[in-house]
């Protein structure tokens, strides 16, 4: 990777429910020698709740413009933030009148279309590359992993950076760190149910159950993922799913940045591995 500096967009969950994703992202980039500069005074991307595309473009024009002033591409560990940043980026780049409309709202929204928005998984595999990652790996993460991609890595086609039905980037990363991917088939890309958690918990829990039980049945030691809403649903709400559906799962759920961090020899506490809700100790025992 030629550029050794990126603008970092942590996203709202980084301050609370996905603290471990934030910690591990920062730690991994530091270890890889890439400087992350947090987008100064960043605002929320609108998540799945801002349904008006114009509102999404306005919210993200501000974040993109801040990174553009620094002359840096923007990277985020959250799949939903990535989707909103990149779809805004595409829309604003293509449409001069839309850019003018943004500028009219406020001068801080004056984004000229000069940068890219990237997801951390895309940066690891396609930018830094497997050869460089391999050269920095010092430990074998000897675990069976169910690679879970969720929605916004392979979909929709306009912003996707992996295959919609059979994505491979996380699989490749897991192999490089010494792990083994279990057969997870179409579950890889099935929605976790997160968007309905607050309005139709019954549906959301059933969606989450399908993924968790599929991972268990496939013999996985853990699920790896790259989105804080998936993390919230599959990890933080796992005890609620177990209670509501009267089942036992006990499936550790770990951010891909945490797994990569372990392979890079970073201290588990620096990767926030004590902050995942389902205990991760057994996984740590398999890092050799």
């Amino acid at each position, binding site marked *: 990777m030629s550029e050794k500096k990126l603008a970092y967009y942590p996203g*709202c*969950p980084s*301050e*609370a*429910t996905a*603290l471990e994703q934030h910690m591990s992202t920062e730690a991994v980039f530091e270890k890889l020698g890439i400087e992350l500069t947090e987008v100064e*005074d*960043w*605002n*929320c991307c*609108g*998540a*799945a*709740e*801002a*349904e*008006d*595309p*114009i*509102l999404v473009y*306005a*919210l993200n024009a*501000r974040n993109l413009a801040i990174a553009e002033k620094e002359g840096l591409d923007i990277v985020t560990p959250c799949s939903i933030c990535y989707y909103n940043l990149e779809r805004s980026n595409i829309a604003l780049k293509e449409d001069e009148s839309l850019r003018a*409309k943004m500028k*009219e*709202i*406020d001068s*801080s*929204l004056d984004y000229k279309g000069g940068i890219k928005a990237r997801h951390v998984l895309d940066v690891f595999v396609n930018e830094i590359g497997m050869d460089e990652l391999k050269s920095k790996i010092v430990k074998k993460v000897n675990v069976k992993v169910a690679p879970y991609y969720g*929605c*916004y890595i*392979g*979909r*929709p*086609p306009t912003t*996707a950076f992996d295959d*919609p*039905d059979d994505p491979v980037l996380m699989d490749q990363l897991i192999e490089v760190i010494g792990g083994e991917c279990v057969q997870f088939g179409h579950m890889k*890309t*099935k*929605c976790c*149910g997160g*968007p*309905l958690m*607050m*309005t*139709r*918990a*019954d*549906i959301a829990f*059933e*969606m989450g159950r399908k993924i968790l039980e599929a991972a268990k049945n496939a013999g996985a030691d853990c699920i790896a993922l790259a989105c804080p809403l998936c993390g919230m649903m599959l990890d*933080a*709400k796992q*005890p*609620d799913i177990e209670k509501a559906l009267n089942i036992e799962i006990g499936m550790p759920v770990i951010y891909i940045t945490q797994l990569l961090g372990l392979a890079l020899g970073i201290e588990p506490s620096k990767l926030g591995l*004590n*902050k*995942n*809700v389902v205990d991760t100790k057994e996984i740590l025992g398999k890092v050799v």
Partner: protein
Amino acid sequence: MTIKTWELDPNFKNEIMSEPGGEHLASCFQCSTCTLGCPIAEIASEHPEMVPSFNPRKIIQMSLLGMREEVLSNPDLWVCLICHTCTARCPQDVRIADVLGAIRRIAEKEEEAGKLKIESPRPLFDKAFLHQLEKYGRLYDMGLAKEYYPKKEGSFIKGMMAMKNDYKDFGMRMFKKGKMGPLGGHGLLKGMLPSKIKQKDVMKKIFEKVEEK
């Protein structure tokens, strides 16, 4: 379902197509690929007691026919996950997830105008979420829950009880992991107070001016 041709609104498709996200509606040729891949349609087939039916193909066709009232009052609109499986697989690039979003926004406007009653708490949730951004520039979980639950339950007391019921265990879990609550995480009141951005005035402007358009 009987289709009363004299009650159809031929302009409904244009109404949807002039909303951002709804532009590709008319390209649909009714192949059903969207519905066959949809995870909510799957839930409907496995658990009809949970979701009686779910058929995005049908919503699109009803929209094209101009069945405005039936579409806007259709409860299916509010259980779409926006997972974009339909969008990814559609051979006609209809972008169904975005089209459904455009239809939801028309339904919300109808409700605001007093012409429709939406039987789902989702618009309340989305609004409560956006209010946090408007006020603070970032999501404030506690603020969101405190606004959403009373509105969903119809009273402050009922709302607080429902919130406690849903989130007591979860809150304790987050507290123990140092992610939320007093003495957790990076500070004494992590998650208890909103994380505010400096340029809150810009957020206010964004919400005011986008609404005008």
